[in-house]
């Protein structure tokens, strides 16, 4: 018999704690599939963030550590430098990476740290109840931008991949989206290259995944995915922003 569908080995039996329709599970699955396909599961150490995916280590079955809020790239640096044979991934939300942890992120990128960063951008602080994030769109209502994000008061959405793509340390920078099967297949392709960057000792790699937060956006899961397509992707366009030789 031909196997058409199989749970990736690295996915544990434990049911996730995510809200219905939350794409964190999709992102986990892509990572787990690639770890299996690239035979990295037993080498992997995943640095989990503070945010909705704080319990990620229950769902992806690798060695894991739990970082302080925003410090994942620094912690990953410590692990990788101390034990270069480990395959070190950080998994971070947009509050974690782009706000409180932006310094650690940029400097890990500048150093060309041999780590892979998976950056899940859902446009708000999911875990703490949907506050404004650095990535919140102009006009978007959150619990701390109740009149909509106003550029004068709150500044503009931050585009991390665009920023990092200007630097010399990163070897692979891309943005994908989790709103459709087509985009999810593309996301996996991008993350594979980001994994290559580390597996081949080339340098720092980051893939942003545009995600949704139906609960805090106060939408059905399908409406939330439509909002990604109609409102988010025009501001956060998907694509590869830096592809150095050797990562493909």
């Amino acid at each position: 018999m031909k196997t058409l569908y199989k749970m990736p080995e690295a996915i544990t039996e434990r049911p996730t704690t995510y809200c219905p329709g939350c794409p964190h599970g999709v992102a986990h699955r892509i990572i787990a599939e690639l770890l299996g396909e690239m035979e990295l599961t037993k080498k992997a150490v995943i640095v989990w963030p503070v945010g909705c995916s704080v319990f990620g280590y229950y769902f992806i079955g690798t060695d894991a550590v739990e970082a302080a809020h925003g410090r994942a790239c620094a912690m990953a640096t410590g692990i990788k430098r101390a034990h270069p044979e480990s395959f070190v991934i950080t998994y971070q939300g947009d509050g974690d990476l782009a706000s409180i942890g932006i310094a650690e992120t940029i400097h890990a990128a500048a150093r060309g740290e041999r780590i892979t960063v998976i950056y899940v951008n859902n446009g708000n602080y999911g875990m703490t109840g949907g506050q404004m994030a650095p990535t919140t769109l102009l006009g978007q209502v959150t619990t701390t931008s109740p009149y909509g994000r106003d550029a004068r008061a709150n500044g503009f959405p931050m585009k991390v991949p665009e920023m990092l793509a200007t630097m010399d340390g990163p070897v692979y920078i891309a943005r994908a989206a989790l709103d459709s099967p087509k985009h999810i297949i593309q996301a996996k392709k991008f993350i594979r290259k980001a994994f290559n960057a580390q597996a081949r000792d080339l340098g720092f790699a980051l893939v942003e995944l545009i995600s949704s937060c139906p609960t805090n956006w106060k939408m059905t899961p399908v409406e939330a995915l439509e909002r990604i397509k109609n409102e988010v992707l025009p501001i956060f366009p998907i694509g590869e922003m830096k592809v150095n030789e050797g990562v493909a």
Partner: protein
Amino acid sequence: MADKVLMKGAEAIAESAIRAGCMAFFGYPITPQNETPEYFSRRMPQVGRVFLQAESEVAAINMVYGAACTGTRVITTSSSPGISLMQEGFSYIANSNVPCVVVNVMRGGPGLGDIAPAQADYNQATKGGGHGDYHSIVVAPHTVQEAVDLIYLAFDLADKYRMMVVMLMDGLMGQMMEPVEFHDWVEVENRKPPEWATVGQGERKERNIITSLEILPEGLEKMDIALQEKYRKVRESEVRFEEYMMDDAKYAITAFGTVARIAKTVVDMAREKGIKVGLIRPVTVWPFPYEVLEERANQVDFFFDVEMNEGQMLIDVKLGVNGKRPVYYYGRLGGIVPSPEEILKEFEKKMEVSK
């Protein structure tokens, strides 16, 4: 032990750490301890180890945290303002049960303060500093040789208890040149990561997860109790102190670190004048040697606590003495090092008062 070499404290501790098997240094420049990272930056590549200048102390301590999770001997050094920035990391390290060594070359504070020698981070180091019920082992050398020795002990204790060990120093000791003897090199190159380390599951049966998080209060209380149990064992087995001229002493000076070194001179000067005074010097300020103070309270007329802060260790001295005898205090603030003459004069005033 090898031959004696003349070395600055700031460099001697780095060399000692390297010989003790320290495989990685992460840190951020701050006066008065820059010679230590500078020394590491020269030496670590020579011996094939890691030196990394972090973008901040916040990043540095989280790099230390990461390296500690792999079971690697790792160190950072900093000074007071930098150590303040690291407190969040200390708290995470404590509840993750991972080993590391941190050196705080204390300077005058609060705020930016100055860069002169001080002891005003005693409370921060011994009572926690970061959030939650936790402790780190805190050692306080009073000579360069002792700093060299205690670095070895620090790594051993960190590994033994899987916890952070802090070495409290000050700029005076960092700048001081003294002949020192280094210990034998600890062989670490062929060391395998410990069973609990997060380096990738490999052949291990179970995967490892290192986290300070436990969302259920009942579960977290269990973790907290386990931590306290560990601290109880540390209190039981790791208290270290030195007594100087205490056998026949009628009075006891208490002091740690640089001040204790000066206090030895004070004791010698007083003895020449026929005053029977001795020194009790905690080597570990956490766990604190309460018992020796309680015992000596049966023997001496009073205690005289001297510090380069507003009397932070004084509280612990009083806890040890437990009301049995008066405990007087003299201190200088702002990064001023008291002279032996000045301390002796203040001490003699207390002798008058207590007559």
